[in-house]
């Protein structure tokens, strides 16, 4: 556990050194501009715009970091040949992967928390108060973080057996497919035949269901999000991440690094 922690801390330090957190300045500027302009360009939806814009920005910035840095976590270490020095130490390959995953998820957590704080500041500026209904926004931010953790795990899995470019494409492809799981499940057998329909239905349960984490609409309109959904999504993300990381560790352990 100490070894995983050491890798995680160094991954976070590396991200800070690489100026990953500079995106926060961009986010802060977007939220400030939105808070000031929103009253002039929208009718009766100032609060909704702030919440949807803020959550979308948190999600998009987080996804960019999760995919591009997630893919580079393993490949960069191999390219720079620093991985060989690391693995020569008493550090198992799965520990290296777990540490890298934990480090990037921690970076994303810090990043997302800072962006959420900026979002709430903008919301306060527009509404002049914060209420119980705004807890839904906090839950939506948490769901974005769960989604990002899943994306990091997938990016790491692909980067373990393919080139960075292909890993980015696979991760992005799987992410988009995971947003249409409901449609896959709803495809009627009349159109494509019972066999493919059953296969797609089966596939829809295997794909990471990113629709689970989409509560932006509810958060924007201040609708309460059931605590059961929060618990289920947490377990879903943890379980799916664990499966992906186990597969990634298995692939990485067999990989010839010579």
């Amino acid at each position, binding site marked *: 556990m100490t070894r995983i922690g050491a890798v995680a801390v160094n991954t976070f330090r590396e991200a800070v050194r690489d100026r990953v957190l500079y995106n926060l300045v961009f986010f802060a500027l977007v939220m400030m501009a939105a808070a000031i302009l929103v009253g002039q*360009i929208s009718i009766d939806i100032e609060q909704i715009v702030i919440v949807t*814009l803020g959550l979308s920005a948190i999600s*998009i910035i987080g996804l960019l970091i999760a995919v591009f840095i997630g893919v580079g976590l393993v490949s960069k270490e191999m390219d720079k040949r620093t991985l060989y020095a690391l693995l020569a130490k008493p550090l198992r390959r799965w520990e290296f992967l777990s540490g890298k995953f934990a480090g990037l998820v921690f970076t994303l957590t810090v990043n997302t928390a800072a962006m959420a704080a900026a979002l709430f500041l903008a919301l306060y500026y527009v509404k002049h108060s914060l209420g119980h209904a705004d807890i839904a926004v906090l839950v939506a931010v948490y769901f974005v973080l769960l989604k990002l953790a899943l994306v990091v795990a997938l990016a790491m899995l692909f980067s373990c057996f393919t080139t960075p470019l292909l890993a980015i494409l696979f991760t992005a492809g799987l992410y988009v497919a995971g947003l249409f799981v409901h449609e896959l499940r709803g495809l009627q057998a009349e159109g494509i035949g019972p066999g493919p329909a059953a296969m797609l239905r089966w596939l829809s349960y295997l794909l990471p269901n990113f629709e689970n984490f989409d509560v932006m609409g509810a958060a*924007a309109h201040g609708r309460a999000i059931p605590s059961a959904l929060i618990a289920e999504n947490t377990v879903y993300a943890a379980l799916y991440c664990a499966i992906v990381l186990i597969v990634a560790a298995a692939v990485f352990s067999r990989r010839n690094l010579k």
Partner: protein
Amino acid sequence: MNSAARYLSLALVVPLGFAGVWRLQKYIDAQQAAVQIEDDQVILRSSKLVKALSLEYAPLVADIYWTRVAQYFGNKHAGHDPDLRLLWPLLDVSTTLDPSLMPAYHFGGTFLSDAPPRGAGRPDLAVQLVERGIRANPNEWRLYYDLGFVYYFDAKDYPKAAAAFLEGSKNPDAFVWMKVMAAKIASEGESPETSLFLWQDIYNTTKDAAVKQNALTHLQLLRAVKDCKQIDALSDEYQRRVGRRPKNIGELVQAGLLHGVPVDALGYAYTLDEDGKAELNVESPLLEKQLMVMPKK
């Protein structure tokens, strides 16, 4: 070429270059305008496609579309263009992307149904939009109010208007008067008092400037109708006393039936037509609005 000459030529070339860019942009803008209109019509009508392309950011895209609705409507009114054909597809996409976008239902209910040039003149689409809102948000009693409003004023379907008000009144948060309104419309159909009450409520409660202005115009016109009826009643009295209809309102003042020449909400004096009936002054901007909203049969 020495450095001074280089700077001089640079000082000439850069502004000239930007002047060329500025000129070229004008031509590009003209070309783009034609392309954009075509794009709007192709893309905006497919709400399912837009939703699929929005991925999980549909609520944000809905806000952008809603802002586009406001811009589209504002530009059309500013340009006195009565063609509001894109209002329905824009509202359709906005509410498909975010089924809880209440301002879109309230605005759409008013301006899809209102007669041209103020609205799109499509009460059928307004009903479709508001009913979609009710399906997605059954606890929003205001949507039943919007539905009743469309049926009452534009579709002129009083039983359905009464049914909508009655359904909405079942919500514990609804205005108490909605049940009374349902009974009144069911028994009387359209009446000036009901119309005045409904438009006054819209005027008092809406945050949308366009909806507020529309309600104000209707209130001013309803007041003009009421004033004209009262002047006509005084003209009848004048006829009983003098044996003929008054030729102008001044005669009613001279006869002591009026203390002064009455004016409409914009300050223009009412006049009498050749039959001695009161009407809005031809100079009054309200007359044009009256002809649009309440055309003479």
